[in-house]
C-alpha cells in the first residue's frame, strides 16, 4: 500500500499528489514513469514521474482527470492509500552532452510530463525555451514551476483566454523561422495530434525532435507488447525501449489507432463510475 502524503488541486481537472514510495524515489530519473493501481480491481495506468524526493522517499505525480481511473484517483485524499505503485519504469531521458538551446513544448495533458524534462535540461545547464498550451486558461498548470526552469516561457490557449490565441505550433513555427536563434533539440509532450503536428512541422528543418509517448500499457516491463509502436519501421515496446522516441520516426497513424482500441470500454467504465458515485456506491 502506498500512502498519499500531499494533494494539490492545480485546476479543475488537474491534480498533483506526492506518494510515499521510497524505493522508487531512490531511483527515479527524468523521463521515467510509474504504473499504479488505485485499488484491488483497478486498472494499471502509467503516469510520468513529475518529481521525486529521495530524502522524503516520495514521488510526485500530476494527472489530468480524463477517464475512470484518473477521476477515481482524484477523489482520494491525503492519508489514503493506493494499492499498487511500481517503478521507475522506462528509460531515463538522455541529456545532450554539449550545452545548447532546447525548445520544450507541453500541451494540455502534456504539461505535467514535460515539466520534469525541462527541469532536467535546466539542471544540466541547457537553455530551455518552453511553450505550454491548453484549451483554456483554467487548464494551464505549472506556470510558475515552468517559468522557474525556463529561459523564456510562452503561453497559448485555444480560446485566447490567456497568452497567444492559438496553438503551441504557431509559436514554435516562429522560432523555427527565426534564423538568429539556433535550436539544438525540441521535445514535445501532449495529445497525439499535437505531437504529430510538431513532428511534421520540424521535420523539414532537420531539428532533432523528441516525443514522450503514453500508449496503453499493462505491465510496463516488456512482457505484454500492448505498448508496441512502430519507430523507424521497427516495432518497439514503449515501456522498455521508450517512452521517449525520435518524433520523426514514430508512426503516429498507427499509434493513434491503437490508442483508440478501448474507447467504448473507457466510456462504459466512466459512466459506471459516475453512476456509482452519484448513488453513493462508489469506491
Amino acid at each position, binding site marked *: 500500500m502506498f500512502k498519499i502524503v500531499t494533494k494539490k488541486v492545480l485546476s479543475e481537472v488537474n491534480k498533483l499528489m506526492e506518494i510515499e514510495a521510497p*524505493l*522508487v524515489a531512490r*531511483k527515479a530519473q527524468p523521463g521515467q514513469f510509474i504504473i499504479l*493501481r488505485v485499488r484491488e*480491481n*483497478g*486498472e*494499471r495506468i502509467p503516469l510520468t514521474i513529475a518529481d521525486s524526493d529521495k530524502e522524503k522517499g516520495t514521488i510526485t505525480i500530476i494527472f489530468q482527470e480524463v477517464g*475512470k*481511473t484518473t477521476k477515481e484517483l482524484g477523489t482520494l485524499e491525503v492519508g489514503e492509500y493506493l*494499492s*499498487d*505503485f*511500481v*517503478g*521507475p*519504469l522506462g528509460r531515463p531521458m538522455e541529456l545532450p552532452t554539449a550545452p545548447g538551446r532546447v525548445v520544450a513544448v507541453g500541451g494540455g495533458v502534456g504539461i505535467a510530463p514535460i515539466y520534469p524534462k525541462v527541469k532536467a535540461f535546466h539542471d544540466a545547464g541547457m537553455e530551455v525555451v518552453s511553450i505550454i498550451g491548453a484549451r483554456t486558461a483554467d487548464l494551464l498548470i505549472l506556470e510558475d514551476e515552468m517559468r522557474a526552469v525556463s529561459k523564456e516561457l510562452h503561453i497559448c490557449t485555444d480560446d485566447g483566454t490567456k497568452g497567444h490565441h492559438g496553438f503551441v505550433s504557431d509559436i514554435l513555427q516562429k522560432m523555427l523561422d527565426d534564423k538568429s536563434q539556433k535550436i539544438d533539440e525540441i521535445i514535445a509532450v501532449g495529445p497525439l495530434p499535437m505531437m504529430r503536428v510538431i513532428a511534421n512541422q520540424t521535420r523539414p528543418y532537420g531539428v532533432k525532435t523528441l516525443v514522450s509517448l503514453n500508449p496503453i500499457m*499493462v*505491465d510496463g*516491463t*516488456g*512482457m*505484454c*507488447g*500492448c505498448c*508496441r*509502436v*512502430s519507430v523507424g519501421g521497427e*516495432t518497439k515496446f514503449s515501456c*522498455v525501449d521508450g517512452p521517449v522516441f525520435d518524433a520523426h520516426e514514430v508512426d503516429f*497513424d*498507427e499509434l493513434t*489507432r*491503437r490508442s*483508440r*482500441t*478501448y474507447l467504448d*470500454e*473507457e466510456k*462504459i*467504465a466512466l459512466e*459506471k463510475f459516475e453512476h456509482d458515485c452519484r448513488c453513493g456506491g462508489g469506491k
Partner: protein
Amino acid sequence: MSLDKETIKELRKLKEKHPMPEQDPRERIKNFDEVPFGYDQETAVKEAMRCLQCKDAKCVEGCPVEVDIPGFIKLIQEEKFDEGIKKLKEKNNLPAVCGRVCPQESQCESFCVRGKKGQPVAIGRLERFLADYELAKGVEKPEKPAPSGKRVAVVGSGPAGLTAAGDLARMGHEVVLYEAFHATGGVLRYGIPEFRLPKEKILQREVDYIASLGVDIRTNVVIGKTITVDELFDEEGFHAVFIGTGAGLPQFLGIPGENCNGVYSANEFLTRTNLMKAYKFPEWDTPIKLAKKVAVVGAGNVAMDSARTALRLGAEEVHIVYRRSDKEMPARAEEIEHAKEEGVIFNLLTNPVKIIADENGWVKGMECIKMELGEPDESGRARPVPIKGSEFIFDVGTVVIAIGNSPNPLIPQTTSGLELGKKGTIKADSDGATTRKGIFAGGDIVTGAATVILAMGAGKVAARAIDRYLSTL
C-alpha cells in the same frame, strides 16, 4: 470404505483410468470455473488400487522432482491421506498446482507399466486429490527451523521462485521474494487461466503456504529497475540471489499488419483476462476486446489457453492456426482434448503470412498459406514448407499470437558478470549456479519456456546449492 479382495483384484486388472468428472463442454464455455472436479475419496482409492507398487518403479524416473509415486499411492490405497500428502510434499511444494498443470502423459504416466496394456495409473489426478484433500482440511504449518543468519533474495514469484523461496526458508535462511507484478505466481497467475488453475482457491493458498514458511513477499518491485541485483548484495545485504524471472517476453510473427488493433500477444490477452480479470469488466476496470471470430496462432499450452479463454469471453468461432501437424502440437494432451470438446477448430499445416486491417486499423482478416511437412529440422521435427499458391484469407477479427516467449532481458541487461545463452537465457550449471558468484538461476530464464515442474525442480536444486554456498561464507 474398505474394498474386498475381489474388487481389488478387479481393479488391478482395470485397463482404464477412472474418469474424472468435469463440467459439460456446452456449459463450461460460458464460465471461468474449473473444468474437472477432481476425484472423490472413493474414486481416488479405487484408482490407487490400479497401481501395482512396482519395486523398481519406472514412474519415478519420469518425475522431474522425484516424487515417491508408489509411496504416496500406497498411502491412498490405505486411506492414510494425511500421511500421503506429507509424502508428496517431501518432494513437491506445490502439489495442487502440479496435479493440475503437469504434462503427466509425457512424464510419470508415460513410464508407468500399466500404460503398456491400457492406460497408466492416473498419477496426476491422485496427486491433485491429495492436495485438494489437504487444502479442504487446512494446511499444516511446518515448524520453523533455527535461523541461519543468512539472507537470500529470490527474484520472481513463479514456480521456480516460489519453490526456491519455500525451501530456503525451511533451511532457516531469511528469504525476501521480489515480484514485479502486484500479484505473485508468475505464469500461474497471469498465464494459466482460472478454469484450469483457480486463483483464490488453489494458487493463493499455495502462495500463502510459502509465506507461512516465513518468506517475506514484496510485490511491485522490478529487479533491475527498482533495485538492481548489485544493490541486493551491496545495499540490501543479501548473501545470495536466486533469479527466477521466467520467459516473459512475447514473440511476434514479424509479418505485416501485426500492430493492427485486435492483434494481441498471448501474454497480453491472458494477462488482461487472468491477472486483471477483464472477464469481469466493468466490475474490474481492465477491458479486453474480442471479435466474433478469433484466430490463435500456435499450438502449445499457451495457445490452447488463449483459444479456450476466447470462447469463454464470448467468441463464436475460435481457430487454432498451426504450421505443423497434430503430432507436433506441444500442448498437454488434456488441453488439446478439452479445446476440441469445447469446439475450438484446428487448422493445421497453416501459416499466417499477413494480417489485413480495415480502414480504421482493425483486423478484418488474416492471410495464410498451406504447409506440407518436409525434412526434419534442428528440433528433430519435420520442417513445414509452404505450398506455393495455396494462400487464402481467414476472415477473423481478432488474432492472438501464441508462438512462444523468450526471457526478459531486464536483469541480464542490468547485472554484470552473467553469461548468457543464445536466446538470452541466463547460463547456469546443473546446480543453478550462474557465472557470477552468489547468483543462482532456474526455471524458464535458464531453459527458455518450459514447464511448471521443471521450473520447480530447478528452484529446488538451486535452493540446496545456495544452502551449501551459504555454509562456505
